[in-house]
């Protein structure tokens, strides 16, 4: 299945959608790029709503080399409009969105789709001689400089100021224009492409209200992500990106000090549950089961961080404006096996289904008005016990994991002290485990003196309780 990749093809599809489904789809213009190329978006809504619709924004094409997201977003618009025109539902693999749900989405949601955010960059990827791996914009239009739009948003943009010197090295961003990590630009929000997206998020673009839901579609990691991208998530409201007292002191995620965690507004808290729901939508659309399924995780889960991203910018609006809540997500559609950044015509349908599945279940959820799904944060491995026993599958390690994950939460005391202990352990565990793993004799002593008696005592207690 061929899919639109060039600017001409993408523009042709947008115009066709707005023309053919003129009662539902409208095309609007944003500011032209430095290269003089048009930037347009589609608005999808039906009729006059008795009450204000929920503003939802989907963006694609920020990174020029990622071919599938713009096409998949446009075909999503086509699916919704066609289903409306034919009074039918949408079925993709195991996923079914009923005709009634389609009507609910079109009635309740004010959907805005900016499919191609970075046309100058896309044209350069396609041009001769160009660069098939180019991800930035083309400002300036010549040479190998250019700004990574997804590092240019006004959220911890100056990463060398935001982090301490050690953590700043773990940021995939650069202040050097031609650098491989992604140039952050002359100043926050300096780029027209960034300003266009900000206008849609903040509701200053024509006919658009401030977004309450935001999804930025990228490729190719096969995951639905939720913020923050810039730090671990925390609950201390004094730890936020604008608090200068923390400048040059924030510790990032890669060194596991755990001194700082970016405040996550509780009103946007069900992020993991919603991201998991979206991932299930992708898996249903591709009828996936077993291994290789799309999952959900936090952007800063791992070793590295990213600053100045669209998703973090969108979430940050929830903190700046107490009357506003923005749920923000990033989809990394497809995998290296699905063609990576450039799926072939035969690989594209799988990637497209990932995007359609996750976004359709999100739209259905938003339109339904039901409570957000809640899912706990990911389980943390028994790092220290694994280092002491030398085997993550050892029966004592498995017992301790079960004690923490299944038994502790069922007791009143466990529910109170469990979460803070697990958080602290998640921070201190890995370095402690590394230290012990390098000292096998000491690890043996710790195992005999501390772990085995504790494990045996706990086993005895549980046996007495019949558990």
């Amino acid at each position, binding site marked *: 299945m061929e899919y639109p990749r060039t600017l001409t093809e993408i523009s042709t599809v947008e115009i066709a959608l707005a023309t053919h489904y003129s009662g539902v789809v409208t095309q609007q213009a944003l500011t032209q790029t430095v290269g003089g190329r048009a930037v347009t978006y589609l608005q999808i809504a039906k009729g006059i709503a008795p009450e204000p619709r929920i503003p939802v924004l989907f963006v694609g094409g920020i990174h020029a080399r990622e071919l599938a997201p713009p096409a998949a977003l446009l075909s999503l618009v086509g699916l919704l409009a066609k289903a409306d025109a034919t009074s039918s539902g949408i079925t993709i693999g195991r996923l079914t969105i009923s005709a009634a749900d389609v009507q609910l989405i079109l009635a309740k949601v004010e959907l805005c789709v900016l499919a191609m955010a970075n046309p100058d960059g896309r044209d350069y990827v396609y041009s001769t001689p160009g660069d098939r*791996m180019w991800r930035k914009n083309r400002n300036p239009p010549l040479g190998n400089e250019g700004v990574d739009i997804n590092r240019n948003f006004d959220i911890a943009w100056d990463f060398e100021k935001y982090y301490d010197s050690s953590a700043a090295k773990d940021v995939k961003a650069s202040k050097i224009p031609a650098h491989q990590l992604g140039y952050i630009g002359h100043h926050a929000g300096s780029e027209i492409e960034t300003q266009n997206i900000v206008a849609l998020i903040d509701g200053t673009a024509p006919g658009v209200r401030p977004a309450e839901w935001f999804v930025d579609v990228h490729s190719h990691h096969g995951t639905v992500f939720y913020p923050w991208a810039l730090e671990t998530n925390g609950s201390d409201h004094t730890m936020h990106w604008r608090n200068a007292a923390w400048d040059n002191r924030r510790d990032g995620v890669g060194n596991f000090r755990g001194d700082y965690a970016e405040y996550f507004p509780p009103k946007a808290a069900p992020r993991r549950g919603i991201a998991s729901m979206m991932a299930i939508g992708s898996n249903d659309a591709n009828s996936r089961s077993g291994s290789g399924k799309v999952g959900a995780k936090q952007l800063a889960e791992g070793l590295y961080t990213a600053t100045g991203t669209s998703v973090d910018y969108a979430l940050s609006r929830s903190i700046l404006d107490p009357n506003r809540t923005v749920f923000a997500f990033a989809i990394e559609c497809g995998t290296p096996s699905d063609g990576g950044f450039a799926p072939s*015509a035969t690989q594209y349908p799988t990637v497209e289904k990932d995007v359609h599945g996750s976004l359709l279940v999100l739209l259905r959820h938003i339109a339904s008005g039901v409570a957000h799904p809640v899912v706990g944060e990911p389980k943390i491995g028994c790092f220290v016990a694994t280092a002491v026993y030398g085997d993550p599958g050892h029966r004592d390690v498995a017992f301790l994991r079960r004690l923490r994950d299944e038994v502790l939460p069922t007791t009143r005391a466990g529910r109170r002290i469990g979460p803070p202990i697990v958080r602290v352990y998640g921070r201190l565990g890995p370095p402690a485990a590394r230290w012990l793993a390098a000292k096998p004799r000491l690890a043996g002593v710790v195992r005999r003196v501390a772990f085995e008696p504790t494990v045996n005592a706990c086993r005895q207690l549980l046996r007495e309780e019949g558990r």
Partner: protein
Amino acid sequence: MAVSFVEISGTLEQMRQLLAVDGMEVMIHSASQIAPDRWRVEAYPTQAAIAAVQGLGATVTVIRTEDEVTAQLEAGWAGVDEPPIA
């Protein structure tokens, strides 16, 4: 510049040096812990960058060679009717 697609595994300290390697584009969201002091990440490095990473002591497993990555990137553009822009 030709790049391959690889999986890199190593210690925390080795992995934290990857972003500073010239010619290395790390897929940062692919980083995961596979053992108490063992991490894994996917990346698009040049040949010189692979040598530099191996010099750090990390293990590099090539998933797709330079030629395969180039072919994959071209495959995405197959069937486009418009002539390339000069």
